[in-house]
């Protein structure tokens, strides 16, 4: 019975101590989570910022207070603002920033919340963009010639003209400034459309002319090639014919050289039979050979 009483008392003491120390612990420490910072205030006045994640000491309420700040990066897009490039072209540009709270103390004192920061950033960025783009031609932003483009330079200029000021004045750490969109004022778009149309028509005309030219080139080349091939064929044909005629002539000449007189005789007989055809009428005297036989006479 006494032992049970003792054990109960010991247990009571342990539980009480744990509870008490938990209360003290939670009152005198503050947990800074990853992605957050805690601003410790003494009687409402910002004292210091705990930016490292982990446990941090503070005096218990009501002496010290803790304000938790979101340290995540945020994206802010500015409004679309019309500006003039160095070559006096109107463009509408929109930039975006990636920012986070850089100095919790300054941020809380100067701005206080996210919406306020974005208001300040908008003005800062628009001014920076107007200034920076005014120092560059439009071809630094859009061009098919890579040597004209200066986007990296423009973006680093934008960053350089906003980041130090934003950190110093508002405690905002501007990590990136980028040109998000580039457009033209509505009244200039019409001119661009006209120009695009004219360009399209030019292209169409060019394609048509090129196509026709190319096609007729192909055709005439083909005709030329074909004529050349045919001419070669004709030439070959003539050569073969000539050679054969020569051979034939030689064969005949070789044969006839044996007896030219006989050749002349056979040749004239051939001519005779060739010349006298079914359409030929011959009027002959019957006293000539062999018809003299008809008259019963002997030949001459």
């Amino acid at each position, binding site marked *: 019975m006494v032992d049970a009483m003792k054990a109960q008392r010991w247990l009571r003491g342990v539980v009480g101590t744990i509870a008490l120390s938990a209360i003290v612990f939670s009152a005198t420490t503050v*947990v800074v*989570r*990853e992605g957050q910072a805690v601003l410790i205030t003494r009687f409402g006045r910002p004292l210091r910022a705990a930016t*490292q994640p982990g446990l941090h000491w503070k005096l218990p309420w009501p002496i010290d207070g803790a304000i938790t700040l979101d340290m995540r*990066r*945020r*994206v802010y897009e500015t409004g679309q603002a019309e500006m003039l490039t160095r070559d006096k072209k109107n463009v509408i540009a929109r930039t975006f920033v990636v920012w986070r709270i850089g100095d919790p103390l300054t941020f809380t004192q100067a701005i206080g919340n996210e919406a306020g920061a974005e208001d300040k950033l908008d003005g800062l960025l628009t001014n920076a963009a107007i200034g920076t783009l005014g120092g560059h031609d*439009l071809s630094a932003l*859009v*061009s*098919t010639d890579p040597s004209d483009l200066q986007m990296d330079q423009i973006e680093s200029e934008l960053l350089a003209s906003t980041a130090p000021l934003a950190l110093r004045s508002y405690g905002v750490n501007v*990590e*990136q400034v*980028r*040109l998000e*969109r*580039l*457009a033209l004022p*509505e009244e200039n778009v019409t001119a*661009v*459309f006209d*120009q*695009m*149309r004219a360009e*399209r028509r030019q*292209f169409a005309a060019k*394609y*048509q002319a090129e*196509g*026709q030219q*190319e096609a*007729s*080139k*192909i055709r005439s080349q*083909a005709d030329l*090639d074909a*004529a050349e*091939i*045919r001419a070669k064929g*004709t030439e070959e*044909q*003539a050569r*073969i*014919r000539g050679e054969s005629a020569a*051979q034939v002539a030689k064969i005949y000449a070789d*044969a*006839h050289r*044996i007896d030219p007189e006989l*050749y002349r005789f056979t040749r004239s*007989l051939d001519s*005779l*039979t060739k010349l006298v055809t079914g*359409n030929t009428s*011959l*009027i002959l*005297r*019957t*006293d000539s*050979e062999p018809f003299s036989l008809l*008259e019963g006479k002997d030949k001459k």
Partner: protein
Amino acid sequence: MRRAGAPSEIARLTAPIVALLDWAWQRMHWWVALMALLYALSGITIVKPDEVAVVLRWGRLVGDTPALQQHGPGLLFAFPRPIDEVVRVQVKHVWEVPVSTLAPASAFAKDYTNMGQDTLNPLTQGYALTGDQNIVQADMVARYRVSDPAEWAFYGPKAEDVLRVEVTAAMVRSLGEMGVDRVLSDGRKTLVALATRRAQIGLDASHSGLELSSLELTRLAPPPALVSDFDAVQSTFIDAQTLQNEAQAYAQSAIPQAQADADAAIQSAHADADSELATAQGDASAFRALEREYRANPTVIRERLYRDAIEKAIGSAAVRWVPPPPGGNYHGFRVSISPPRAGERPRRSTPPTSEDEDDEDERGTPP
């Protein structure tokens, strides 16, 4: 008195609470012990197959390197809150976000095409400028996944925000480097690759902890008001191609045709030559044979040849017999020949010749 009095006062004040606790403990100590145990085990977490978990101890990330920070799927032992906090992140899942910042606003686009208005309002209509200062409109879908869970979970900007602006900026910049004809035709792949690379660089620079798995250009076209002009160029181009193809086809048939003609000419020449040669050789050998015979027997052969020829000639010709004149003297005998339609009337020709040979249609009568 004071030493004894003070505790007794506290004891008196806390007596009902202590009595209540004692009573509760005696009744429910098993339950309380069970609750305490459950609390102690509440930090144990199951990490699902497509997840990675990171542990925060007193708010700070446990582990120095990403490999040590991240815990894969399975059972994860951690202390209960508020000591440890387990944050689970889906890293394998690919999320999809449409990016329509450079696309025409659908409602407005309809108005514009209907009205045929020749401009675009930059505030309501998305578009971008190409390197040759043409206007194109693009609609994109970005697919991404979490590549660095800790960075994404604690420091990264909102995934949808950062993707929209980074992808837009990357596309605007990439379009601004290329000509409109290139991006609308064969340069499209290059454009997407360039924009994807740029967007990823941007995502890394803004510590988003995101990886762009793919960037899809669902639509890339000139503004509706200009579509017909672009189509016309396209169709002209195709027509020109057709014209060239037809010419090619013509060339491909004309040349073999010419070749065939040439071959035929050569073949016929060869054939003619062969036959002429054969004839010549035949004639030559016939002549030689004849000559051999002739040399042996000139008179007979000559006579035979002569008679054969005469027979053949007379045999093939139309022969009319003209009876000899009275007395058989042909001297002064005349034969007149007239065409058959001139009638039967004979004519006489005056010059006296002893022999007449004529090859005309004849009608001969004695005088």
